[in-house]
């Protein structure tokens, strides 16, 4: 079915929007935080990467569904 490809493409795009917004918000807050407290920049960076990684992980699951749709 061609619609499966369409759905996979749309799904990948939409999950990327979600991940982009999420990681963007983390980045913005981390920037803000380390600008206010430069001495905490190291800790903030570590937790930023952890949170970004967790969002990334969730996005991968969404992408896996898209891949299954496209390949089924």
């Amino acid at each position: 079915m061609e619609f499966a490809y369409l759905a996979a493409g749309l799904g990948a795009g939409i999950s990327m929007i979600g991940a982009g917004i999420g990681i963007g918000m983390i980045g913005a807050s981390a920037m803000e935080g380390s600008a206010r407290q430069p001495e905490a920049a190291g800790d903030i960076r570590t937790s930023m990467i952890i949170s970004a990684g967790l969002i990334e992980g969730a996005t991968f699951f969404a992408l896996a569904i898209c891949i299954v749709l496209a390949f089924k």
Partner: protein
Amino acid sequence: MSADVRRTLLSMLIVSVCTLTAEAAGPEVNPKRIDILGKLSDHHYLDFKPLAKVELPRILRFDGRWEFYPSTTAALNREDGWTDAYYLANPDDLVFKKDGITLAPVTYELVRADGNGPDFDASITSHLVWFLLSGVLVFVVFGRLASKYDRRSAEGLLPRGAFMNLFETLVVFIRDEVALANIGPDKYLRYTPYLLTVFFMILFMNLFGLAPWGVSSTSDVMITAVLALTTFAITQIAGTRDYWMHVLAMPGVPKFMLVILTPVEILGLFTKPFALTIRLFANMAAGKMLVLSIIGMIFMFAEIFGDTVGLVSAAVWIPFTVFIYAIKIFASFLQAYVFAMFSALFIGLAAADHSHDHEHS
């Protein structure tokens, strides 16, 4: 079997490129097409185009018997049985013969005359070669580094020179910012060697992909799965009684909630290495795909608007590729760091003996 899994997983994540390569599988091989899927996948040879093509040994198990051949050609030209077959749509177009002897089929996929493949294919492939090379490099670099430190510290001298200072920066960074920060001061020294090994192996593998003729083995899902499995094993071994209690029966939670919570926690054990695997693999494979896609734009323009436009458009796409390469250098370090970081985090969570003064609610 492992080759099957590898092929499936790889082709799954490269779905966007598949339409491109499906077009390429016409009866005549169009030199303007780039086989992105083929460039990303694992091979039974090392390609030093245009200088040489080194075939790698084949180790196969067929009918309960192990067979060893120094190269694919040696396996093909054996007396009985081994013929080649191409797994993609067109078996014929990419296999070429000369004087009745089969030479270098592109996939090097070996099947018997009846069409059956080997039960088990443990051949040394290009990704494995680069993986092992990175292991050897880590061994050599750190062996040398350690002996240098021993010698200099015996004389009471400080580290000197680019080699020592470069690696000292990275080693201290991993020890302090990754191991100490995530595992805690009591146990971090025990796991620092593993974190250093995994960081530098991934880093070297990623950087190999940027070298001429190099392949980054981390863009192979099997390699990253093995690395994640190592982290998984170490995490479970590091796990304290406390950790297992939290996984199997979270303390301070109503009994009926455990029906939901325990399966989720057990699932969580396996999603962690899965996410590690996919993160590294997807990032590295995507980087490779991006470079090939941008280079492919030249050929696309040449196809649509004619060769001259294609040639001129290269002035745009080549600097773009260089830019992507610069990002890939950054991503090589970042992904190695992220992998080591998450490994440290998981190990730290498992190894922590936290007292039960905090509330579980």
